[in-house]
């Protein structure tokens, strides 16, 4: 799939930022990446997506606050918002309704930063799996092979370490180390490599992690095939 423009959100009509948000951002796609036509892409800053990445329909890539950079072999699931928060609740009721309690506090500083200084860059390293309904705010960094589960919120400026896992529903407001699992209310953390013999444990852990990444690759390839087929059918139906 070439850099076919993704559809723009239908609700971006009556807002002050409509000029910037409705404008299609410059998207750089890898050759083998699948950016589903059903995904929402908006904002004025650049969006870079690596090779073999899968972006599900209804995922939202927002470049209003700053540029987005997504690495190779990532999976961005549906209804997740990358580079949020969304600009104003009134323009986008469905998305803001679900996260209204979490959004207001970080929203203000992000906007101010945006106005004053350089745009904040949201970086997602390769092999990251972002599950459904999770929100990655603009300015967050997610390092390689991290897993962000459903309904997770990652605030601006936070760095999630490589091979870390944020379990479902957790709100992350501070940096997460490499190989760390955050679960519970976000206050329980576990190092994935803390065996009594660290070097051996780490080796084992890498084996397990490699298995997981392999499984993730398989899942991604399968889903890409299905979604590509679906997109083709949709365009054919439209033509008819």
């Amino acid at each position, binding site marked *: 799939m070439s850099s076919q423009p993704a559809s723009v959100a239908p609700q971006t009509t009556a807002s002050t930022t409509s000029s910037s948000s409705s404008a299609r951002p410059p998207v750089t796609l890898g050759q083998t990446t699948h950016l589903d036509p059903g995904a929402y892409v908006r904002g004025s800053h650049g969006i870079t997506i690596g090779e073999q990445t899968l972006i599900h329909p209804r995922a939202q890539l927002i470049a209003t606050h700053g540029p987005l950079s997504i690495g190779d072999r990532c999976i961005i699931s549906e209804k997740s918002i990358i580079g949020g928060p969304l600009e104003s609740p009134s323009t986008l009721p469905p998305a803001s309704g679900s996260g209204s309690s979490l959004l207001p506090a970080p929203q203000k500083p992000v906007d101010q930063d945006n106005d004053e200084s350089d745009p904040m860059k949201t970086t997602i390293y390769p092999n990251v799996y972002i599950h459904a309904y999770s929100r990655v705010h603009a300015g967050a960094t997610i390092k390689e092979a991290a897993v962000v589960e459903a309904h997770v919120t990652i605030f601006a400026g936070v760095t999630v370490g490589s091979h870390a896992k944020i379990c479902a529903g957790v709100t992350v407001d501070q940096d997460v180390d490499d190989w760390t699992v955050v679960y519970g209310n976000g206050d329980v953390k576990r190092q994935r490599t803390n065996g009594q013999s660290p070097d051996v444990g780490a080796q084992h852990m890498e*084996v397990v992690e490699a298995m997981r990444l392999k499984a993730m690759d398989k899942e991604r390839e399968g889903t890409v095939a299905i979604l590509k087929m679906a997109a083709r059918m949709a365009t054919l139906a439209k033509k008819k």
Partner: protein
Amino acid sequence: MALPFPYIFISCPCSDVSNRELTSKRSSRDVELDQEIQDDEETFDPRHPRSAFSLFPPEHLLYCEECHEIKCPRCVTEEINATYCPDCLFESPKVMVRGEGNRCPRNCFHCPICTSQMITASVGDPKNGPFILNCNYCMWSTLDVGIKFDKPTGIRGQLDEIANGGEQKAATVHSPYSYQADYARKSSLSRPPLSPADRDEIADPKEDSVSATPLDPTARFNALKTFYKEQITESSATDATFSTSALDMAYSSPSSLQRIMNLYTNKEGATIRARQKLTVMREARSASEGFALAASRDSGVESQSPRIDYDETVTASQRAFQYPSFIGNPAALKVSELRPMPTLMRTKRSKRCATCKHILARPELKISSARYRIKLIALNYVPFVTIKPLPIAGGLPPPGPDGGDVILTPGKPVQFIMTLRNPLFDDVSVSLGTPSVTPGRHGHRVTILCPQFRLGKNSDAWDDALSNNNQPDRGTGNIAGGEQVAGKLYDQGRNWASVVLEIIPASIVRQQSEELDEDEDVIEIPIRVRLEWTVTDDEAGMERRKRDTRLDEGDDIDDGKRELNYWMVVGIGRVAC
């Protein structure tokens, strides 16, 4: 009670004092009780400490078809039909359950860190393994404690033999005492007793052969047990009064009881025995005999590794999850000492009426099915009661969806609509009785505008439509048509009727210093419900079949008349104070 208003409770008749008296023997000292019965028959006090034990939500009650009574969880007996693992849905025989510590004997495990279910995964070749248990939630795996499995099945058996770190468990290291114990037991009577010196000679080379691995608590216990058994056998060879039956330490066995009695009654024999006793029982003194220095714990853990990183310590709940000690490691200090825990088994139980042994609930035998073959729920026999405020101007607003507190102003009459819905396939005549003033410190005035009425049968809605001409005489006869008229129903339908309940809350007066008891301001109204119905022959299906079987069994002749009395408690709201 932390329930949203309004709530309904039903008092099980089994706790009724008068009811209990009828069945049990009377004695003269029951005069006081008789007095209580008198009180009890007058009104049921929901505030009485005793009533807390007899009130149940209607959903929790069963109904016995034989006794024609409501049965609460206390008047049923439970029996276990099957024990199964909730994860793999495999049934286990009872003997096995006892032996395996009520845990899944197969492959089901839970994560010791986060208690979620673990998954068997392969590291390396997908078919030939080695395999690990992996927690997909917190990413803990048995590799964290250095355990790998050779086969993907029978993991419980494999894990029992592996200690954390991957070595064989000390319990399964060939214990010198396993064969020694047998040897000693077989020869105990024929062999001359060993003197302590002899024993040392035997014990010493053994100690050398034993590996220095310290035994875990279970193994230590077994070693100590065999050691002392052996000591007893040896001493018993010379001592006639100390019989070999004492070996099993079974105090309930008649022979050992005899022996113990001998110790007390036969004093002379005891002194003789003491003189005769030549062999001295030795205490355990080597690690292989199960001996461990008490100080070794201090020197072992605390001084060798005085500092444990906070992240590596276990939480209290993680330790609690490790019980019992022969499966997990409840003494674990560090995360690396934790062990994956096999899934706890669950049971399927059937319930019987405690008085007549009639089955009230019986689950299907198939483990994977969650349905019940028999389930006699009280709500299928007793009218279902709902209560809402009367929708009039100045009345209470209807309760919100979250059911917040209902606050009533003292002295101001409030009306509620109480709707009773008949689940039976017969017409039921209902009479409701309530004290005009609620019992307790604060008497709230209660009036039920129409205390006696009939509930239509719970027939099919289609039947209703077909026999439309019958409808008017049943319907309009006694309806006030949404008005509050004394002696008339507020509204009525096919199998339901609603009556108006009027409450005048009493004002709660108290001194400044006086603290209100917890929930003292809650208005709870006791209502005596009396149901009468006749099981008719023309009823389709269920009822008739039940009657037939009853007649076949030669029961006393059943005229089909049923009567049910019980106290119901309605929590209406709180009084503002």
